């Protein structure tokens, strides 16, 4: 796949969490407009390996916009300039020949850098483990039709469940707040009958874990919603506020 884009890349290189990092500048040429952003980095890495240099470490898995691994802060925005896409779904036709592209890892106290562009997002896993689950009885599966669910609740729960845990909301937020992520995980269960048993405890536990992990508070700037590749709505954060405070005043 040969193309005609020549680009200057300024990429954050950092050996590990203990050492300080810095930007390195690389030139890449002959990049095709049809390549994804990750494929463009692959081209660079192949060259670095051939030259005996350390390739740029970055996270990726599905490369089809569903796993949420491909965290890159590109020219001042999580997942680059386009709306509603992850980095793997960003294509080089979104850039111009001769452009300089600055690539940084997610920056947050709660997401320490592991190497180069790879950050540790296990804080998200611990927030989910704190309350993002439901209890299910053993034995035969219940007849699905015995649980009536209003259509709008099902729709909202589905929309919240679209969150892929990528962390773009944290990366975009000036406070490195994880409210959009946590509220989506609280909402998808609070809206459904299966989530009722743990409803109050869940809200309290997940918010407490979110604070303990070192994410910031919400200033309602809306940057998270604007940058979320899955279109998770700020309505979820409002719902989380309701869930949390009603739990605070009613839980025993």
């Amino acid at each position, binding site marked *: 796949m040969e193309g005609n884009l020549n680009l200057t890349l*300024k990429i954050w290189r950092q050996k590990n969490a203990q050492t300080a990092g810095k*930007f390195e500048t690389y030139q890449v040429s002959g990049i095709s407009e049809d390549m994804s952003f990750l494929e463009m980095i692959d081209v660079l890495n192949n060259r670095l390996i051939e030259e005996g240099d350390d390739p740029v470490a970055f996270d990726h898995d599905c490369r089809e916009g569903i796993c949420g691994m491909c965290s890159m*802060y590109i*020219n*001042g*925005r999580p997942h680059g*300039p386009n709306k509603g896409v992850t980095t793997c779904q960003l294509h080089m036709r979104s850039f111009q020949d001769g452009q300089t592209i*600055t690539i*940084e890892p997610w*920056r*947050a*106290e*709660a997401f320490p850098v592991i190497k180069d562009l790879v950050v540790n997002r296990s804080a998200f896993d611990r927030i989910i483990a704190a309350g993002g689950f439901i209890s299910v009885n053993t034995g035969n599966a219940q007849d699905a039709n015995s649980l009536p669910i209003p259509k709008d609740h099902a729709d909202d729960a589905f929309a919240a469940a679209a969150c892929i845990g990528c962390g773009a909301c944290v990366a*975009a937020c*000036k*406070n*490195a*707040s994880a*409210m959009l992520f946590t509220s989506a995980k609280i909402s998808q269960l609070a809206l459904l009958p299966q989530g009722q048993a743990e409803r109050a405890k869940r809200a309290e536990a997940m*918010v*407490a874990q*979110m*604070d303990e992990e*070192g*994410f*910031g*508070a*919400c*200033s*309602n*700037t*809306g*940057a998270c919603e*604007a*940058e979320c590749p899955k279109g998770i709505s*700020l*309505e979820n*954060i*409002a*719902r*989380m*506020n*309701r869930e*949390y*405070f009603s739990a*605070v005043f009613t839980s025993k």
Partner: protein
Amino acid sequence: MAWLSKSLNSSLGKKLLMAITGLFLVSFLVVHCGLNATVFFNDGGETFNKGAEFMAKNPFIRTMEIVLFGGLLLHILDGLRLWIDNKKKRPVAYAVVDGAANSKWYSRSMGLLGTLLLLFIIIHLKHFWYFSRLTDNLTEEHTLFHEMQAIFASPVVVVIYVLGCISLAYHLLHGFQSAFQTLGWNHPKYTPTIKCIGAAYSIIISIIFAAMPIAFHLNLIH
């Protein structure tokens, strides 16, 4: 009560306090603006002075004055606490940030706008609250209305007041609707209305406040 202090010290609790105190200040400004706008009656400050005297004597208003100072102080201290906390959450800054791509500048600058407001409020209290409550200079011949005329004769003061009103407009342009989101009020039925009222309130109240020093300075009020 450990449960309450724990939740009010959580990230959500700190914002709840911000929203409640902020909306309380919003409601105060309606009264403050309504009363002060009577200077535009051009009756030599007669209505305005009557109102000011009532406010100074009425025990309910005097009690609310203490609540107001308390609310303002809570809002300032909680804002400071949030600002310090939030700053720490990103120890290594980005080299490039394209903030305009995803949010309004004033929504990201509430701490700065609040600090400008605080500086303005200190100057403003010195001008009028200190004069009317803590000195004996207020007399039949030299009313609060006369003091306004005297203070706003200075162009520097007029500029400071107009800048204060601009900071207020932007603080509330984000703050008004933000407070309802913090309180959990976000619904397709009424959120557009809240946003509309918030924008109208912020702009109208700031224009009326800014018009006072300007009008006094240009001798349009007498």
